[in-house]
């Protein structure tokens, strides 16, 4: 399942999925003046009567979604990942707590968003939404998987937060491969028994690059796409533990994100040596995606180094 080069951004996959779901009259789309960016604009253009543009008002958008959901609609709301955080308490008290199903997509997440600078580079979103009981949290790695996982939300019984990326990434899944993805079931993209890299979002392609490089050095690592951070695929993590070393890779703070979620499972179920590649308690700055990812330590080289540190350490079990 390794990638061929077909550029697209995961946010495009979200826009594709809304159109795929449009034949279901229950589906309604909510925007907060960023539909062109999150890609819900394509649904809006075809179905203006089922699209509600609410202005720059994320808190209102969240609860309007709740009111629609109570009446049987399936609302898909989107804004930038960073501004989804502004409606966090609305999601907590108005949606997750109340048993209503509203789907929120935050695009332009992480350092990968680049030039807009630190005010836009959300590195907390996955962590905070993960704390809400019953909330599903996803971060797909490419256009096709974002499309498929968003489509799966149609019959999903829980509210969700999905982070998508602004910038294009390699195609990791063909359309057919993506069709088989399930929410909560991680995907093994590459086999290996020396160590495992568990990644999400834009770090998946970097993890595949790292695995390639490590292979040249005689280290065969498994690569797992943990597209769903909650409910997390515990079995995939415990299988990864059998390789004896785990590196997590995320364009997100290591506090609360994928690395934390994996560590929560391992520390209780199967203590395993691990390292985290992620944002180390820092804010970003303007720069090209590559420049800022380099500066924050979010490159395939960083992943390679962490794997080598684990694999080469004497006394490894």
């Amino acid at each position, binding site marked *: 399942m390794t990638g061929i080069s077909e550029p697209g951004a995961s946010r495009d996959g979200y826009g594709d999925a809304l159109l795929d779901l449009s034949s279901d009259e229950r589906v309604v789309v909510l925007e907060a003046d960023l539909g062109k960016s999150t890609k819900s604009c394509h649904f809006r253009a075809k179905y203006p009567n089922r699209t509600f543009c609410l202005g720059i008002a994320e808190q209102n958008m969240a609860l309007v979604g709740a009111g629609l959901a109570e009446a049987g609609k399936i609302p898909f709301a989107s804004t930038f990942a960073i501004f989804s955080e502004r409606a966090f308490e609305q999601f907590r008290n*108005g949606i997750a707590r109340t048993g209503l199903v509203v789907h929120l997509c935050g695009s332009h997440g992480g350092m990968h968003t680049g030039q807009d600078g630190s005010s836009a580079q959300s590195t907390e979103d996955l962590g905070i939404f993960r704390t809400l009981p019953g909330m599903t949290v996803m971060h797909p790695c490419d256009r096709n998987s974002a499309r498929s996982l968003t489509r799966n939300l149609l019959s999903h019984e829980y509210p969700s937060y999905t982070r998508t990326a602004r910038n294009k990434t390699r195609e990791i899944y063909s359309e057919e491969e993506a069709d088989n993805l399930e929410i909560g079931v991680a995907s093994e993209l590459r086999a290996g028994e020396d160590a495992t890299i568990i990644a999400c979002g834009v770090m998946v392609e970097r993890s595949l690059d790292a695995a390639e490089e490590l292979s040249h050095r005689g280290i065969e690592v498994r690569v797992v796409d943990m597209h769903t951070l909650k409910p997390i695929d515990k079995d995939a993590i415990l299988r990864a533990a059998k390789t004896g070393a785990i590196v997590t890779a995320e364009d997100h703070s290591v506090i609360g994100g994928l690395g934390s979620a994996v560590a929560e499972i391992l520390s209780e179920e199967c203590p395993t040596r691990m390292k985290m590649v992620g944002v180390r308690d820092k804010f970003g700055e303007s720069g090209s995606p590559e420049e800022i990812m380099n500066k924050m330590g979010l490159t395939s080289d960083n992943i390679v180094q962490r794997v080598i540190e684990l694999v080469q350490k004497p006394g490894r079990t």
Partner: protein
Amino acid sequence: MVYKAQSGHPGGSLSCIDILVGLYRSAMRFDPDNPGWGDRDRFVMSKGHASPAVYSILRDVGVLEDSDLDGFRSLGSVCQGHVDRKWTEGVDFSAGSLGMGLSFGLGSALAARLDVSERHTWVLLGDGEIQEGQIWEAAMAASHLEVANLTAIIDRNRIQNDNFVDDQMRVGDVASKFHSFGWNVIEIDGHDMSEIVSALSEAKASDGPTAIVAATVKGKGVSFMEDNPAFHGAAPNDEQYAEAMEELS
């Protein structure tokens, strides 16, 4: 309820109970035998701490029983501290965090419009609550989206948790504010049943969102609670309870 639980919010429950009687006894499309009927009017108690008023009216129309009310605020009770749709039959909205109900009501109203339904959504707001910015996000959106099946009733009792509203954070001319946001506005005495009933009827017939600004008295009906910020969120003691029950009977 509040006396028995020794916690809760009597003042703001008494200020809005006449409005709830008007809603449930005259205005709302609601079937007590089928409180979950999908095409019912929705009632959003946005100032969720006034839950005793909601439980009382639901008892009055026969959805809840006395024993339900007896459990108010106790572990496992259907009568949670703040109204909660997951716990109480007949409750449409889970409140407790102020400022969210008008947005929820807007969503309900938009859903009714998509369904080409006659159902109406009624939202009860506190006057302290409208200090929350989200109220004005929703007010702007309701008028922009030309939602006619939405009514907000502002319980203008002039007292909030810490103090009088005017001392804490003036909300000023509430009627003018809603008017400037594009709403129809009706001002009434929130304890005059004929004014309440006629305003609700006018609001339902209106061609845009309507705000009913109801002048009320916090703690209405109990002399020592009336207009007294101390009874926003405090239960009466034994003597006060006896005195209150005598005044209310």
